[in-house]
């Protein structure tokens, strides 16, 4: 059994859906004891929404839930019941860290804001990751990652200049959790050094905007609004996705330097068109980019996406196949070598392969364990963590405080 960076850190986890749980997954994967305080009345969306294993619904069969909640424990508590709230407070007293990703102001409405939590545990670290933060005119505005991607400005700069913006899905859901996790991990270290807890008011909106910073400066100093450019890049041509053999198969290619261009031409057999003056320099290739892309596509379409990637990379030119989920999990020798997916045994699913954390620590790598069944650790949490007696537990069950 290896060592883990967050061994002994205890988390009372009120997060749900996506950005919260992917944040606390980091803590659990690095060894913290993360107790999900779930509701059976209003279950986590990813326990009740597809995709399910074998398309059969069930609280423990959700693909996304099981991928993003690795290594955590689960207790079901009715927080609407005053006794449930008292129970939650007991877990908060036990915890070092409390996490939530409700809309701004929600924890306050439940009487579980930082001021209250400090009374229970003076050095508590509380992290609230709301769409807009806890304050401001939009603070309690509800929304999901696709809406946040829209208002953060990331959607407007995506897709083709002659079309409405292209879909980028719940993109900011992949930005906010990292900012949440890095802030939380730093706060845990800060408390170890200073003894001080604190309240971390994280706004997913403000995190998302970080990924536009250079364009924002361009707006500020040059009054230039950033617009979508397809796959164009000022410093490379060819640059984009090119069609390959098969149904809807593509390979990305990016040629930056003159050396790479010459290698590229060599790989594709130095066809006559590559020596035409209008493709000789980056500047000229950008002037004739549409024709260039067409000509490159006439080469790539003869080969599979993998063949294009391997032959170009071997010649020192950037190329990457655009795979499907199947390709990611089965046909990528590199991800296999890196053991990115880590098979788990699961009582209801059999086996499944959630991803590990993307950073590999040489001495204390993360440890992936399966996600919890709903309420799986209710008895353990009440007995071992809170020290309640069997009678006390039975009372809670009878009163439907826990489910």
């Amino acid at each position, binding site marked *: 059994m290896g060592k883990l960076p967050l061994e002994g850190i205890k988390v009372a986890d009120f997060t749900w859906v996506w950005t919260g749980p992917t944040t606390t997954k980091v803590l659990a994967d690095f060894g913290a004891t993360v107790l999900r305080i779930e509701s059976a009345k209003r279950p986590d969306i990813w326990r009740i929404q597809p995709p399910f294993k074998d398309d059969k619904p069930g609280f423990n069969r959700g693909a996304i839930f099981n991928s993003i909640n690795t290594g955590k424990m689960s207790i079901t508590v009715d927080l609407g019941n005053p006794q449930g709230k008292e129970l939650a407070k007991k877990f908060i007293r036990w915890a070092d860290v409390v996490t939530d990703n409700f809309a701004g102001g929600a924890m306050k409405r439940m009487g579980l804001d930082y001021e209250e939590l400090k009374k229970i545990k003076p050095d508590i670290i509380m992290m609230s990751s709301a769409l807009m933060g806890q304050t401001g005119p939009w603070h309690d505005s509800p929304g999901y990652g696709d809406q946040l991607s829209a208002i953060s400005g990331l959607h407007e700069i995506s897709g083709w200049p002659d079309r409405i913006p292209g879909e980028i899905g719940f993109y900011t859901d992949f930005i906010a959790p990292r900012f949440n996790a890095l802030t939380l991990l730093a*706060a845990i270290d800060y408390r170890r050094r200073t003894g001080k807890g604190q309240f971390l008011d994280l706004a997913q909106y403000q995190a998302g905007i970080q990924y536009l910073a250079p364009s924002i400066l361009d707006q500020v100093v040059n009054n230039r609004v950033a617009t979508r450019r397809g796959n164009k890049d000022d410093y490379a041509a060819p640059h984009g*996705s090119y069609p390959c053999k098969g149904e809807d198969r593509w390979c990305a290619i990016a040629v930056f330097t003159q050396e790479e261009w010459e290698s590229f031409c060599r790989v594709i057999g130095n066809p006559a068109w590559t020596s035409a003056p209008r493709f000789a320099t980056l500047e000229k290739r950008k002037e004739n980019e549409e024709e260039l892309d067409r000509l490159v596509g006439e080469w790539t379409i003869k080969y599979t996406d993998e063949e294009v990637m391997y032959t170009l990379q071997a010649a020192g030119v950037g190329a990457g196949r655009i795979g499907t989920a199947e390709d990611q999990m089965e046909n990528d020798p590199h*991800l296999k070598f890196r053991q990115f997916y880590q098979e788990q045994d699961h009582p209801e699913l059999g086996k499944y392969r959630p991803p590990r954390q993307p950073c590999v620590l040489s001495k204390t790598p993360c440890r992936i364990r399966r996600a919890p069944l709903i309420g799986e650790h209710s008895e353990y949490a009440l007995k071992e963590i809170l020290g309640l007696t069997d009678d006390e537990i039975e009372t809670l069950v009878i009163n439907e405080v826990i489910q």
Partner: protein
Amino acid sequence: MTRNAEGLLSPYRVLDLTDEKGLFCGKIMGDMGADVIKIEKPGGDDARRIGPFYHDEVDPSKSLYWFAMNTSKRGVTLDIEPPEGRSIFKKLAAKADFIIESFPPGYMAELGLGYPDLEKINPGLILVSITPFGQTGPFKDFKGPDMVMWAMGAGPTMRGYDSHDRPPFRISHHPQTYFHAGTEAVVGAMAALNYRGVSGEGQHVDVSIQECVNWAPLGDWDFNRRSRKRGQAVNPLQVTHIWPCQDGFVMWRYTGGPNALRHSVPLARWIVAEGMADDWFKNLDWANFSHYTATQADVDHMEKVTLDFFMTKTKAELMEGAIRNRIMLYPLSTTADLLESPQLEARKFWRDVEHPELGTSIRYPGTWAVNSETTPRISRRAPLVGEHNREIFVEELGLSEEELRTLKQAGVV
């Protein structure tokens, strides 16, 4: 502007050797209060050539990309390849808490600066390496420009929701995949920091950009052996998600059933109140509406009424109405819109950063968090080329002015 003494990372020093692939990591750590020293090759890092530029003046001290990615850092120039350069670097490494780098795997080791070498100098040091495919594996020497990393991650724009009559695309302008890796590198650095806190030991953090952007919808494949086709419809009918309005676009989707009360009904009411609804729309039974039982004609009708309404309003007006009526409608902001956001204003998000060399200050996007003890904030603008050579090499390391001059002439500094 002074370094943030009250930051989460104020006691720590970071040596930042990264290029474009990893600059974001040091920026975040600097904004959190760490003492970050950007080490560039003599003459300045290649990332200074990345636009856009201040007033479109192409100059290594005016790259807005460089400005954005290097806030809160000081800067020195140092060539770590020659023996004298390596010796100076090791002196700095001995007192550093973190070193971040994005060289090809093996490069640092070849210079005698791999993790095992650095560990001997400084057992508590945390080395963070950011590369396209990580330190190991069959693809570790592959080239990883942002376009390629988007492809290797098979993310939402590559395999996802959009129409499939155009090539898969990446988000324009910025190397998003590098930002993801830079942020992830901080996560890894912080995890390692926590281990060091209890053990005294540093370690090597290996960040693969590919792994940071690996978002293919696994559920379908791992759970049901299905791969989602690009452009596969989520709804049985054609349903609009991005709508034009008077001055841009908004994101809105109608829902029926129990959720309609909270979402669709408030918008429908607003449209009716403005006199823009026909009888059909006024009488629509939202609670019993479903995309699975409605006809395309129904949806088209509902959407025509809605589109006509949206076209009479600006993004700001629609957002204001959405907030007031609690409708889950959001505009697609442009960079110009962000500067006008009342929410960002109220959160004190913007930070005016002094640029004395330009004779002005510039408004930067600021903090991502408001902490009760340690709110991150930009403490200074990005460094000029070699701006702190004297401060670090002479004042701190004790080199003489003569020695510094000699090193400069030799191209080491």
